[in-house]
Structure formats: structure tokens, C-alpha cells
């Protein structure tokens, strides 16, 4: 009924393009992930950190191709911002009551949710591309003074592909969380506390459980989890295969969205 799905996605895009939040958070995500990558290069650089880190870094990490891949994989740290973008996209409709005109134009409320998820998959992928570009540039520049393993095209391509898929899924997850918790402040706080506290602690204490949580699934989906070094003590056995990570993230988003469309999205808009 009413306008075709393409028009709904176009409307959602105009909502995003005509406010500042996406541009701001994308810029922040690029800077943040680039700084992470640059830092990883510098702490591994021979001589630079020895005073601080003692003699821990005996290996020449920069000579290891896996380490270089892990540095590029910092593009994935943009995921938290992408999650927030999805959360904000849905909750700002309730905060500013634009949900009234949205549901007047599209009374089948589930279609709005689906259109937002579709658009934000694209936005997550877009953020992944620019964050990866920032990380690649920073890494290349930071590596200049040192001997290091080369940045291979295969490594770059697989990290980029992983980031695109992972961040697209994270954005969809964010939209689904925002539709389940429609109060903007509550939704943002919940998302941040979950990612930074709950999931970090659970993963540390019970890696076998952590792999089934969104963050663990994201790592798996991006297939760049650096096991012991990067994933808070996960062993290889506690990381799902990439397709498993993708399915787990899709399942979270799907279940949240399904619950939301039967509960929060059915509520009276007053």
C-alpha cells in the first residue's frame, strides 16, 4: 500500500541528509578508528615504547603480516558510532515527534522500520568505507619510518569487505535497538553500557558466551579478530566463523525488530 519501498528509503535518506548527526558521527568514527590504527603501529614500533612497556614487545610485531592486518582491522572500531547512528535515527523520530508525520505518510508502521534498516545497512557500509580509507592512510603514513611487513592487497580487501559487512549489520542492529527502546537517552545509554561494560566483562570472564554476543559476532563477521591480542582474551576456539557472526548479528536485529513491531511500534502516538 501507499508509496513504493524505494520512496520510503528515499524519504529516510532525506531525513539523514538534512540533519547533521550522520556527518558528525561519521567524521568522529573516521578520526577514532584512524587514531586507533596509528596507535597500534606506534606501540609496536621498535624503540618507541620500550621505555614505557618494558621489554614486553620482544617480537618485531610490525614484521608480522597478521599484525598489519590487525592494524587495518581497526576500521571496525567505527562500529560503536554506527550502532549509535542507527539508534539515533529511530529514537529521534520519537524525541522530536516526527514519528507523527512519518506514520501519517506510512500508516503501515513495519514498513518504516524496514526502510530505515535498509537505508542504514547502506550507511553502515558507507561509514566502513570512509573509516577504512582513514585507517589505511594513517597506517601507511605511520609505518613510513619503520621496517614492516607490506600492506598486501588481499589483506586490505578482506578487511574492507569484513568492515563493510560488519558495520552494515551494526547499523541495522542500532535501528532495531532504537525501535525497541524508543526513549533516545535510555537507548543510547543502554547501547553504550552494553558495549563498553556488560559485553566487555562477559567476554573477558566467559569467552565462550562472548562469541554469541553482538560484539563477538561482529568480530567474527569481520574475521579480523586478533584472538589473544585484540579480543580481550578470546582464544581461536571462541570465535564463530564469519558467516556465523553474520547470522548471529542478523538474528539479534531481526528478533529486536520483530519484538518492536509487536510492542513499541504498535503503541499510540500521542
Amino acid at each position, binding site marked *: *500500500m*501507499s*508509496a*513504493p519501498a524505494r*520512496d*520510503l528509503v*528515499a*524519504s529516510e535518506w*532525506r*531525513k539523514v541528509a*538534512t*540533519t*547533521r548527526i550522520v556527518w558528525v558521527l561519521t567524521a568522529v568514527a573516521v578520526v577514532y578508528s584512524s587514531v586507533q590504527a596509528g596507535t597500534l603501529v606506534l606501540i609496536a614500533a621498535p624503540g618507541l615504547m620500550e621505555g614505557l612497556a618494558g621489554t614486553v614487545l620482544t617480537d618485531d610485531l610490525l614484521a608480522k603480516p597478521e599484525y598489519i592486518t590487525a592494524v587495518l582491522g581497526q576500521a571496525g572500531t567505527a562500529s560503536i558510532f554506527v550502532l549509535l547512528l542507527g539508534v539515533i535515527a529511530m529514537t*529521534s523520530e520519537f524525541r*522530536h*515527534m*516526527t*514519528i*507523527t*508525520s*512519518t*506514520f*501519517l*505518510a*506510512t*500508516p*503501515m508502521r513495519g514498513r518504516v522500520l524496514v526502510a530505515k534498516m535498509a537505508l542504514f545497512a547502506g550507511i553502515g557500509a558507507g561509514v566502513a568505507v570512509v573509516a577504512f580509507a582513514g585507517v589505511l592512510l594513517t597506517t601507511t603514513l605511520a609505518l613510513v619510518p619503520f621496517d614492516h611487513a607490506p600492506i598486501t592487497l588481499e589483506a586490505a580487501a578482506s578487511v574492507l569487505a569484513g568492515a563493510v559487512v560488519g558495520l552494515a549489520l551494526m547499523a541495522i542492529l542500532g535501528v532495531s535497538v532504537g525501535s525497541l527502546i524508543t526513549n533516545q537517552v535510555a537507548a543510547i545509554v543502554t547501547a553504550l553500557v552494553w558495549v563498553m561494560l556488560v559485553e566487555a566483562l562477559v567476554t573477558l570472564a566467559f569467552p565462550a558466551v562472548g562469541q554469541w554476543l553482538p560484539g563477538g559476532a561482529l568480530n567474527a563477521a569481520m574475521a579480523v579478530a586478533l584472538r589473544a591480542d585484540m579480543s580481550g582474551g578470546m582464544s581461536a576456539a571462541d570465535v564463530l566463523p564469519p558467516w556465523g557472526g553474520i547470522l548471529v548479528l542478523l538474528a539479534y536485529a531481526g528478533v529486536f525488530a520483530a519484538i518492536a513491531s509487536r510492542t513499541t511500534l*504498535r503503541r*499510540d*502516538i*500521542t
Partner: protein
Amino acid sequence: MTATTGPTIEVASLTKVFRRSVTAVKDLSFTVSPGRVTGFLGPNGSGKTTTLRCLLGLVRPTDGQALVDGRPYRDLPNPTGMVGAALEASGFHPGRTARNHLRVVAAAAGLPASRADEVLEAVGLTDAGRRRLVEYSLGMRQRLALATALLGDPGALILDEPANGLDPEGIAWLRSYLRARAAAGGTVLVSSHALSEMQQTVDDVVIINKGELVQAGTLSSLSTGERVVLRSPDEARLLPLLLREGSGVEADSRPDGSILVTGLSAAEVGHLAFSGGCELHELSTESDALERIFLDLTRGDA
């Protein structure tokens, strides 16, 4: 502007109970016809907004139905083209410009972006269209809400207190715009508690109080006829003469010392006074203001 006939709006035994305890609308039924302006009147908290939101699929009725063209809003094939709605406190994103707000809605309704500029012009906001909404005044927001309602060039307009915040010029413009819309065959349902301004705009009225229907009909059917105002030094003799004329006759003294008579024409009162030999110092008529009828109808706790 569409010249085709707008849809009929029907509210049938509508009941809405919020949180299992607040009965906002109770067994309310009325019909809104195309080609006429219908005023939806009631004091604060009487359930106007709730009723309109039920009509627009935003609030789920507890019981009964609210239909546009015989269907619930969400089943309309082209809702934006059938009904344009401007609701009290419907929101705008403060960071967006008016034009972009309209383009967002236009896209969702499958309309070309150029409609945004057309409706901005229709409500006199062309010059302010590129300003962010955080800078908009209440009156400008009302105009933008109306512009949003007009996007799909709908056969029916449902407006919740559209005159709030408008300057006198804006109110005059709104009035003539709604009249023109109805004259072209459109359906127009406007809620208000500022009754005096509705009187000059509406053909039909639906009056509610505490969620229940008080009266529905044409504006002229509401008027209970002329009221006669008189002053007389012989009032003690005159009043029994008047009251003897029939059971429908009533006379009340007013604080200013005059007497208000209903149920008799001025000519009849004059004749009775003359033949009874009573001196009159004033004999005039007062037509029933909608305001007064409204106050009478919604007065008193049910």
C-alpha cells in the same frame, strides 16, 4: 486544488481508554460530510485530539471505529492523497529546514520534491522555507503543519486547532482558505476551543464534552432562535403576562438589570407589553452566539 468530492469521515461508537483508566472518548458517533466545513468543538481535555488521532491511525480505538471513506486510515490506498492532517504538537526536527521537512514527507508519500515549494507558497512561507525550524515561531509552525497537510492535495483536511498562534491576518486567511476548500468539494474537519472564530467559518458543528457527544448538526440548527432583551419599570406585572404565553417561554433577570426572554419574538413581547399597559425602556434582540450555546452545552459536571 482538487475539484473532486472529498471523502466522508465517520466516527462510529468510538471509545478510547488510556492506560485502562482514563476515558478520553466515550461512545462518540458523528459524520463529517464533504463540501462543508465542520467545526469540532469542546473544552480542554474533552477528547478532540484523541478522536482525530484515532481517525488518523495514530491511536488505536478501545472500541468502535473511526473511518475515512469507509475504511480505517491505515487501509487507505493513498493516505496522503486522501487525507491531509495537521495535529497539535506534531513535531518537526529542529535542525531541519521547513523545505527539507516537506521534502522528507513528500518522498514518503511518493510525491515529487517540487510539491514542497508549492505548499510553502500556499501558506506564505516561501521566504522562510530555507530557515531551520529551531528558528520558527508558533505561528510559522502552524503554517508549516498546514503546508504538510496540503502536500498530497488531499480531498479531506483534518486540522487540530489550526488557528492557535496565528496572527489575525493568518486567521482570516485560514478561514477563507478552508471555506474555499469546502466550496471546491473538499471535506474539512477543524477542531477548536476558540469558538468565536469558528462561528464565521463552519457549516456544521460537532460539540463534545468529557469525551461524549453533546450536539451535532448544522450551525443554524444549533441556534435556539432569538433572545429578547427588555427593560421595564413594570417588570413585576409584565413577566407573568409573558410567561402565561406558553411553557417554552423563559425569562431571567440579568446582572445589568435587564430581562432576557426566550421563546417569544420581540414583536410578541412588544405586543404583550402594549396591551398589558406596561412601560418599556428597552426592547432589543440578541442572536445566540455560538460561544454562549457552547458554554451552556458544556457547562456543569455530567
